[in-house]
């Protein structure tokens, strides 16, 4: 176990180094500098700037030095805990990162809080009696909900809940301060897709386990049904879903981009999207590294969980 973790950690650091170097190289091009200049000075402004003034502007922004110099300087900065400055928003990247990550964490917390018990329960219920009416309904709903792209779900939910019934505000920018009602729409959009996905996986795993020999043996032996389920089947059926839940951390980070942009929620996904559009390199770098970190961490946690739960795989 320990060895696995260390391997994962080394891998993560290696990947982060490679990725950050790549990003720096890509964003070092003249095309990107012009893009940032246009976003900040305005199209006309840039066009009328003389060559000297343009270089002076580049100098002020620190964009004029070659790639290696800037990369090393950035690594040094990082070592001191300074993530740099956002060009677009004029604040320290660490502040921006902290705020947006905490907002997304709140959203993710509620998503997991509701998703885990609901989907595991539904998946187990459906898988327990394969082919029954309950199973058919749950399966159909699960496939159905994972077939609707999240922007479509977001759009439909807005129409029904916000415009039609008026229970929740249409956008979640939370200008008047934090309110749970504004969180409802993004939460539901994420939940609908994620619950469906997890239910499908859980059901598949459960049906496989229920069809296995030892379960059938237990039933034939005369054990009460619910004991069979609780003692024997669940433990094995939940191996895959639980590992998937950890991987969902990574998935949520990805889904949250679209949902936050649609509902204008000030989270991590929206921050990354705005930074990509503007060409705000420091923010993009920091954000990508955090994303990579979360992804690798979720994979690592998933492996650890798998090792802990699956009795057959105890050795790292």
């Amino acid at each position: 176990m320990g060895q696995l973790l260390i391997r994962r950690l080394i891998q993560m650091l290696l990947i982060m180094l490679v990725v950050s170097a790549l990003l720096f190289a890509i964003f070092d091009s003249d095309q990107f500098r012009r893009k940032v200049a246009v976003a900040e000075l305005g199209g006309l402004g840039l066009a009328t700037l003389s060559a000297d003034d343009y270089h002076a502007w580049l100098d002020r922004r620190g964009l004029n030095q070659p790639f290696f110099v800037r990369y090393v300087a950035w690594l040094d900065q990082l070592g001191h805990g300074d993530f740099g400055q956002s060009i677009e928003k004029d604040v320290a990247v660490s502040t921006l990162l902290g705020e947006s990550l905490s907002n997304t964490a709140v959203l993710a917390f509620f998503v997991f809080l509701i998703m885990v018990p609901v989907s595991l329960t539904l998946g187990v219920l459906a898988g327990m009696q394969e082919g029954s009416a309950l199973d058919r309904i749950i399966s159909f709903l699960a496939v159905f909900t994972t077939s609707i792209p999240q922007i479509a779900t977001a759009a439909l939910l807005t129409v029904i809940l916000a415009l039609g019934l008026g229970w929740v505000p249409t956008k979640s920018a939370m200008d008047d301060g934090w309110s749970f009602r504004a969180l409802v729409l993004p939460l539901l959009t994420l939940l609908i897709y994620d619950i469906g996905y997890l239910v499908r996986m859980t059901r598949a795993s459960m049906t496989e386990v229920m069809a296995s020999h030892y379960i059938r043996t237990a039933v034939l032996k005369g054990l009460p049904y619910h004991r069979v389920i609780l003692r024997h089947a669940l433990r094995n059926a939940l191996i895959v879903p639980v590992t998937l839940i950890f991987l969902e951390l990574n998935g949520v980070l990805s889904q949250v981009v679209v949902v936050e942009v649609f509902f204008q929620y000030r989270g991590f996904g929206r921050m990354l999207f705005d930074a990509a559009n503007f060409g705000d390199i420091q923010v993009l770098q920091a954000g990508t590294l955090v994303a990579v970190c979360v992804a690798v961490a979720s994979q690592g946690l998933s492996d650890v969980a798998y090792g802990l739960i699956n009795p057959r795989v105890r050795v790292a």
Partner: protein
Amino acid sequence: MSIAHPLLPGLCEQLERGVMSRREFIRCATLIGMTARTAHAMAGSTAPAMAAETLPFPAVDPGAKHGGILRIGQMVGKMHDPATYSWNEMSNQTRPILEYLTMIGPDNVVRPMLVDWWQPSADLRTWTLHVRSGVKWHNGDELTAEHVAWNIRRWTDPALGSSNLGLSTFAALTEFTGGRDAKGKAVRRALKNGVEVLDSHTVRLNLARPTLSVAEDCAEYCTLIVHPSFVAPLSHQPMGTGPYTLADLRVGERCILKRVTHTTDGREFRYWGGDVYLDEIHFYNYEQEYQTAALASGSVDAIYELTIEQLELAQSIPGAQILSVESAQTLCCRMQVDVKPFDDVRVRRAVVKAADNARIKDLVFGAHGSVAHNYHVAPIHPEYFPLPPPVRDVAGAKQLLKEAGYEKGLDLTICVGNNDGPWQQAVCEALRDQVKDAGINLKVEVLPATKYWEVWNQVPFGATSWAHRPLGTMALAQAYRTGASWNETHFSDPKFDLALSEAEATLDVAERRLKMQKVEQLLEDAAIVLQAFWRPVFSLASSRVRGYRPHPARQIQLTKVWMT
């Protein structure tokens, strides 16, 4: 002001003879420094009710209530250095805090603000500005001519990189040194004695060239007056002469302004402009397309701009106030005259002839806006000369193409960036359908906005939107004069340059209009741009807001706005 301007009797005579309309007389008289009220009186009409004689603000309902918070949906930008602002929204956020020397109202008439009268010399090269007395800064200092001069000198310093140098007045306060920079552009520096302080409240500008538009230029969005102790960024130490100050700014999120009640040294702050009603003004970041939705759901009380696509939607919102105003904003489909096939004037004329300007305007704006005839001077400009409107002539267009050697038809591509909204694309597509009849295959290439700005003045055929300018000569000087910084068409005609300079040196409106006839005719004959309409500007506010009016340059003027 009691000093009579030498040109005034001439103006009066023209008014009496009926050569000049009342509206133009009022405009011209205010140009040379007469108060609006006196000008109206001389023209024989009652002035629109102004709060006081020299105040530029509209009159307010006597039942106006004090208090309340106005929330506006607009993109929230940085507030770094007002002289180098690149977005209009930044100046909107700053306008309640800092002020201008003059102010252009929604009716396109310039009014005194921090200067209360001004007088040009007869040759329009020397302008005397009188600074209003009794104007206080937030720290208790009184506004003096030295402060104003400091600001103007700052703008004319090329090292600052302010876009104000693009305005005629401030360009005329600089001269070329004769050297060239790395890009080959001529280097400038400020005139030694351009700005003179005569006494504590009088400034004199000695311009290198006769300039007509000094008062208008001082109302442009980047000419906010800051205190000489100003150090960028403004958001850290906001100090101005306006009735509000900055309480919180988060770029891309919100900007909170609070009314100033006391100066920084504890005394009471009385705003020179009289009563101010709102306690706080909040700007919340909403992108253009989502602003109407934000108002519909009650998150904001007013928005930055209502575009034509959302007009019908806005009309379905119960209680919303929708107002419109004429502007000189337009879309120029401009052709570069030094690139094939546009170097042949017959090809350009063919494109223009094959288009039906009125139909394009109807398709895109319906009953709103007004038709333009390709020479970039609008009916709301005082020196507008109405040339006979061109008629669509497909056969003529085909004939011209045939003469130019394109009998089999011509393939063209127009680039558009949709910076102001998808209506720009709709215009290009309407054009495409129309010129098809003449055998021209026009392909509409839509670029993402940022990409468009990288190539906007390099593409041979592109659609650029031009903002509102109060005088007709201003856009022409920036766009079509030889070597002008925004001359995207590379148009260069010495006759045109001469005619334009002559028009710009003429204060007398009737004479200027005649001179503009020549200017407009030259542009129309050269057929370098297809400009089909003048855009209407709409404003949208909820039923609780009073006094919120649209402005042709999208300047949000909030001093006398109140809420029920």
